[in-house]
């Protein structure tokens, strides 16, 4: 901190952070102004203060937390399954031209398909309960992770593998001990996209058919025109996304200590 250059950098960082708050505060300000000037009836647009108060109340409410928990558990199960599948298939495809020859065209066909369209099929085959929602999360989150893994594994410097093989590592062990760690930066980028996608998809699935979860709360509030309660689940899912993204960012920082910084 005593280094003057360090101080200048910190103050620049602070200034940029303050700059970033401006549009957010501006939006809230416009929102407040619209309400204060009576441009929108409170039934359609409650005041920011009202929404904030309801958020704080709900975040301590066990029933609300139960719904948030349901969303979080579906999200976590789906995301982790997508991570295991995407990384597993990606690394296998990197190791075997045969697997790659099967995986690549499948991805070409399936990746651009809007997965929500598959949701009715999941409902019909897996039922209305958790399984179909988790399946949708997996279907949506697996492709960014798989694509990132494929791309990253294809760019692993072959000489890294050679160096390990010469040191006595078997081809299969080299896959786990060299290809996988060398692909990690790419995998984590894919995982980050997959995580946000999971957040979005689980919420949408709960909105379309559900009896619990944050998405259900939004639909329930919309049906009874409780506008304030419609804001709360939206703010909650945004907060959840930011929180999980932050956690992934921390994990990334630890896992990628040795890798050169990206752009």
């Amino acid at each position, binding site marked *: 901190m005593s280094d003057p250059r360090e101080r200048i950098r910190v103050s620049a960082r602070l200034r940029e952070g303050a700059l970033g708050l401006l549009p957010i505060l501006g939006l809230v300000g416009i929102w407040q102004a619209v309400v204060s000037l009576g441009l929108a009836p409170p039934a359609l647009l409650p005041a920011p203060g009202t929404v904030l108060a309801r958020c704080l109340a709900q975040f301590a409410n066990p029933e609300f937390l139960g719904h948030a928990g349901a969303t979080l558990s579906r999200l976590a199960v789906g995301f982790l399954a997508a991570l295991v599948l995407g990384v597993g298939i990606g690394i296998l495809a990197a190791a075997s031209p045969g697997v790659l020859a099967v995986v690549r065209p499948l991805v070409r066909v399936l990746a651009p*398909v809007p997965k929500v*369209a598959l949701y*009715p099929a999941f*409902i019909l*085959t897996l039922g209305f309960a958790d399984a179909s929602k988790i399946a949708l999360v997996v279907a949506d989150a697996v492709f960014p992770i798989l694509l990132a893994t494929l*791309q990253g594994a294809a760019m692993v410097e072959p000489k890294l593998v050679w160096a390990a093989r010469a040191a006595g590592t078997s081809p299969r062990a080299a896959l786990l001990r060299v290809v996988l760690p060398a692909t990690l930066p790419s995998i984590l980028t894919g995982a980050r996209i997959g995580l946000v996608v999971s957040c979005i998809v689980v919420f949408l699935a709960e909105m379309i058919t559900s009896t619990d979860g944050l998405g259900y709360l939004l639909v329930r509030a919309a049906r009874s025109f409780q506008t304030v309660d*419609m804001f709360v689940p939206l703010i909650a899912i945004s907060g959840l*996304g930011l929180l999980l993204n932050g956690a992934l960012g921390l994990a990334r920082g630890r896992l990628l200590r040795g890798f050169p910084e990206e752009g």
Partner: protein
Amino acid sequence: MRRLPAGLPPLLALAGLLAAWEVASRFLALDGLPSVPATLAALPDLVADPDFARNLLASLRRMATGFCLALALALPAGLAMGRSRTVAALLNPLTMMVYPVPKAALMPLIMLWLGVGDLAKTLVIVLGVSLPVLYHAYQGARAVEEKMLWSAAAMGLSGPARAARVVLPAALPEILVGCRTGIVLALITMATSEMIARQSGIGAVLFNALDLAQYETVYAIILVIGALGVGLDVLFEGARARLVGWAGPPPALAPASA
């Protein structure tokens, strides 16, 4: 080993998927999983149905409008973020906050304000497409080499001319990655918002068929939406190859989702 024609492996993959579906429907014998021939038989009726065609066209119109509006808004903003630290600092936190919000989930609120018409559905699509376009335009403009701009300035190009004639083309490959994600997102947001609002459009038709237990129709619509996704992607990839052939092969497949 001889090389297979480029289009063949995806077709084989499609055939494999259909075969897997057929096997699953025979072995599971679920009501909710009709056989492939039964589904394919439902396709002609579906496509010939004027009501379905009307809904599909309405969906596509909203999608195209939303996509173009998003492009017009997000592209300049993204390029400005890439070339100015101040603009980037200004907009970054806001985009971070909005990123994990499911745009289609804003449907109920927006419907409350704007009614159930085209306006609400198009606005949701604009919101959904804007973020990836913004992000990729930002990344693309940020990566433009400073020395390229110096050379352009030395040749006497003014600021706006540099933006249009150096930054834009140099960032184009990355921008197109964003557009590709944007197209798939437009399709997804469109279908989802219709599933939630259930007024018109292909997403609404899909869930109405589900409610009426017309399972063959449900699967036929899924096939149509899937084909739409793949078709748009193939078209876009063709256009991309023409526009930025100089930038080499595509940077893998754009991880498009949500």
